[in-house]
């Protein structure tokens, strides 16, 4: 599984970073980006889905 934050949609709500800090980080401006090229380590798939389901800007996508 891979996750991706679309930087043109992200407005810095920081929900993904709060819910899945293993998968996402934020820069100094609060804009989110995926860690580890978006590769989701085994066992963290649910956290990736939770981040997607809580992004108000629909900026996160998942490739299964």
């Amino acid at each position, binding site marked *: 599984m891979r996750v991706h934050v679309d930087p043109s949609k992200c*407005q*810095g*709500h*920081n929900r993904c*970073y*709060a819910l899945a800090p293993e998968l996402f980080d*934020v*820069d*100094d*401006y*609060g804009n989110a980006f995926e860690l580890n090229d978006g590769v989701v380590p085994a066992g963290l798939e649910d956290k990736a889905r*939770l981040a997607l*389901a*809580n*992004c*108000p*800007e*629909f900026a996160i996508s998942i490739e299964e």
Partner: protein
Amino acid sequence: MSETVYGPVTDWATDFDHGSPAYAADMHKIWDDLKNSGCPIAHTERYGGAWLPLTHEMVHSIAYDTDHFTSEAPVVGQLKPSQIPDRIGAPIGPVPPISSDPPFHNEARRLLLPAFSPKMIDPWRDEVIEICNKLIDDMGDADHIDAALQYSQHIPVMVIARMLGLPVEDGDKFRGWVNLVLSGIGEERTEARMQQFMEFNDYLAFHVNDHKENPREDLISFLLNAEIFGDKLSLEHVVGTVILLLIAGIDTTWSGIGSSLWHLATNSVDRRRLVENPDMIPAAIEEFLRAYAPVTMARLVKEDMEFHGVQMKKEDWVLLPFPAANRDDKQFANAHEVVIDREENRHAAFGLGIHRCLGSNLARLEMNVAIEVFLQRFPDFSVDANEIVTWSTGQVRGPRSLPFVVNARA
């Protein structure tokens, strides 16, 4: 609470008044009735003409459409910006960056973002815990408390005053001005009110000047040194941004904390679940933000246009009721139920698009800590049946009095 200068509302579809006590008391039912009667966008001639779109889709599309809607006046007033002499207009507006449009907006916001990023806000946690505990200590062993007057209203004031570099002990003044700016939109424009606005301005001008002479490590000094497009910020820009941070940093979070406490005082099952499982608090806070989102913003129509079948006129107000978008059942399963462990929650309490609340990380921290500490200290509390809970009017909604009975303390 009194009626606005426009008098009681006769028809919510054609004559709504979002500043009226009836709206504050019953907005959820008003939205439902409007939508059920086939009116997803209400209109009023009050305030010089305003629209109230109610679906998540409409609110989302207006928030994103900076080509047709300007943010230059995010709070609806009785006068349109064009009727106010010497007012700073688009793209800057009087309180940047919330009142700014692109491309100016992007630069003005970028200046402020780092100070409110998670990594700068998280370190405030211990201080907020201390503030909350101190407020509860100050209640002594009273069984009857007012959780709005003695608790929720103080927390954001103390934090934002410290961040800005304003005297923490001036909290009462700040709250007075917050009410003036936000809750009094429908009140008569009296001399006394104008005088209060002047006092607010003079107070801030004094403190900004004092920071010029005596720079320190706070946001006011930071703003005085900041540059935009290669120049120092104008004094109007600095004062405008301080007004924004002060007003937006106080009323909103105070309302969010208060509404969460009100829910817990009136829903003992949810309260017990959070007392027993404090690790559920962050998800519950998101649900309270969805169900009781405090903030409605406003835009102005740039040019005559059609929107979802209605004819909007240049300089009509358009409200962005994020709380209504958050209760849209097309967007949320069981939208009208408060589900404290809701897993899918793309709520819009902090807005959508480029004006996403700058202070959202701080607001979340304050709400989480405030509820955590309150539940630790008062594991059982309820609304005092002999007293009345009052709610604010206007574009920020939250309880202004929360008479509680403390049934257990720890």
